[in-house]
């Protein structure tokens, strides 16, 4: 589904990604770990097409297409979803209105008919309930005055509504208490299917207790330093990142 080859990217002329290779098949869940500043969030931003992240070399193939040639919204409509590390507020725009506009944009790209207001409400309410969000939450402004945990759950709500092919979760687990983590993990697990792939960017192995990855990659200095199974995350937790670097050196 996704094939990243020799990816180099800069932010404000500083090289961050330096020859990253990664291949993800449909149905797989990959965890990307690594120390601060290793390029994890940059990878997520480059995949989504955020301004200010410049790809200087390499390629990204997504479902047989050149992902880098697509605008941000085209990638989104093609099924690339980014759950934000720091979701922003949009005052005065209700969550409901935002979710609906977004769902309509994605569905119309897929050639699916728009949901009626009633159908949409039902879907939005059911999905909120799944994430243990009060239905009142849908009426509030997008992320306006939400707690950290609510913002993260709102990201998962959007993800479940949009049913993306490729979901990228950028440190969605940070700042969540254990109950919220469980709810978020349940949401991610609900999305798992043979047609979809999920990339989880995380600092902590804790999330991986709830969403068990097929592969774990350690990113350091803009490259994948090591890949392995679930056990690699446990090893990292026990030993930290230092040993990998020493190993590599």
């Amino acid at each position, binding site marked *: 589904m996704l094939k990243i080859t020799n990816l180099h990217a800069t932010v404000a002329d500083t090289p961050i990604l330096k020859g990253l290779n990664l291949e993800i098949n449909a149905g797989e869940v990959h965890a990307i770990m690594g120390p601060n500043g290793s390029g994890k969030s940059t990878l997520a931003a480059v995949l989504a097409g955020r301004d200010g992240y410049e790809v200087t070399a390499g390629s990204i193939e997504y479902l047989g297409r050149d992902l880098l040639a697509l605008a941000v*919204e085209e990638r989104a409509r093609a099924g690339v979803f980014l759950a934000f590390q720091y979701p922003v507020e949009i005052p005065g725009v209700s969550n409901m209105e935002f979710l609906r506009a977004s769902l309509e944009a994605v569905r119309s790209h897929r050639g699916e008919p728009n949901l009626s207001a009633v159908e949409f409400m039902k879907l939005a309410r059911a999905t909120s309930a799944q994430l243990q969000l009060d239905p009142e939450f849908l009426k509030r402004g997008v992320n306006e005055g939400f707690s950290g945990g609510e913002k993260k759950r709102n990201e998962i709500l959007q993800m479940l509504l949009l049913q993306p092919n490729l979901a990228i979760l950028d440190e969605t687990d940070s700042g969540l208490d254990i109950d919220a983590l469980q709810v978020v993990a349940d949401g991610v697990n609900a999305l798992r299917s043979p047609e979809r792939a999920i990339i989880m960017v995380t600092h902590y192995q804790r999330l991986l207790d709830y969403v068990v990855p097929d592969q774990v990659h350690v990113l350091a200095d803009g490259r994948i330093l090591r890949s392995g199974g679930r056990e690699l995350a446990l090893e990292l937790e026990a030993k930290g990142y230092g040993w990998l670097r020493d190993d590599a050196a």
Partner: protein
Amino acid sequence: MSKNLGQLDRMVHGAYEAGWTTDIESDTLAPGLNEDTVRFISARKQEPEWLLQWRLKAFRHWQTMVHPEWAHVHYPPIDYQSISYYSAPRRPGEGPQSLDEVDPELLRTYEKLGIPLHERAALAGVAVDAVFDSVSVVTTFKDKLAEAGVIFCPISEAVREHPELIRKYLGSVVPFRDNFFAGLNSAVFSDGSFVYVPKGVRCPMELSTYFRINARNTGQFERTLIVADEGSHVSYLEGCTAPQRDENQLHAAVVELIALKGAEIKYSTVQNWYPGDAEGRGGIYNFVTKRGIAHENAKISWTQVETGSAITWKYPSVILQGDNAVGEFYSVALTRGMQQADTGTKMVHVGRNTRSTIVSKGISAMRAENSYRGLVHIGAGAENARNHTQCDSLLIGDRCGAHTFPYIESRNPSATVEHEATTSKVGDDQLFLCRQRGLDPEKAVSMIVNGFCKQVFRELPMEFAVEAGKLLEVSLEGAVG
């Protein structure tokens, strides 16, 4: 529409050796302003002597006044002698008594503007007093209103039919000495709307007037007067639009509202006059004086959505004369391209326990300059007066400007005056979030801006709130990036 404009062009560019022509087929006054101009207009309107004298007094006073320079707007000096002060579309006979008699070309023009009079009137139950250049061409639903005792007619007609009301109230809130543009308007106003709602009557429908400036080089000087008698209620909507023109056109209107004891007037404006092109060529100069007086327990509420005009200079105000009077001002002003807006309100608290609320939302895009200028005045006798002002600015891009000029004068220690102001930018993060969820950039900006304006749109009559939202969307096209 082009055929219609061609006709108007011919009217304007005909030969006018004598200063003006009374030829009914080309009823446009040659450019120029002197006492004869004032007399001509008054005569065309078949006005009584007292009104002519009032106009002349206003004109003489205006000649002693100087053009105001204090606003945060810039434009070359206006040559008042190069403007034509009267233009009426050609029409056969004495003028239309019903829609059937209106020039079909004219009706088509309105339709292009999205005001199909027939449907609109029928579906929405809105009575439209359409002003085409200077003459009211058609008034609908007059009969239904008459049943309720409501008078809604062109002001020129009211001068003839209801002289006692006009004499009593015209200039009572905005005297001709008030300011330069009010003085000019008083001398040369051509038409506008008049509303009278009798004691205790709730006006059975929204009243609406669409103003449109059409002929080339004609200033438009409407005069609107609304009188809500004791305990009555009226909601009035004014929508404005003008076609594209290379030169700047002047619009200096006066609106006076009188809310007697316990009455309520809600006045909503959606204004999308031609703002000029991206380089600042052309566009309307909108210099308008709007003021209401609220007597005991009365309420006046101004709501405006302004997206047009090259320059906007406008401060809808309320004099809170009686005890417990309430004044409100809700405003969205969107400026883009080279537009300049200096707009806000004045709340003058005279009576006890008077309350006022000001919510102003300014949006600037591209190279536009948007200023809020507001005065809250608490008089010595205004015990326990309260004001709350909220002033928010939103910037799109980094070449535009937002300015806030609040003036607060309190002469009574028991008064409470609050002022909040914020400036924010449509963030790259917000845009990215929306686009990552599949929205195109223009839809995203319009959604963010609509959210920002929600507090004001809520105050508009429902169907117009939708229209206002659409208007913002159209106005913001190309403002991103």
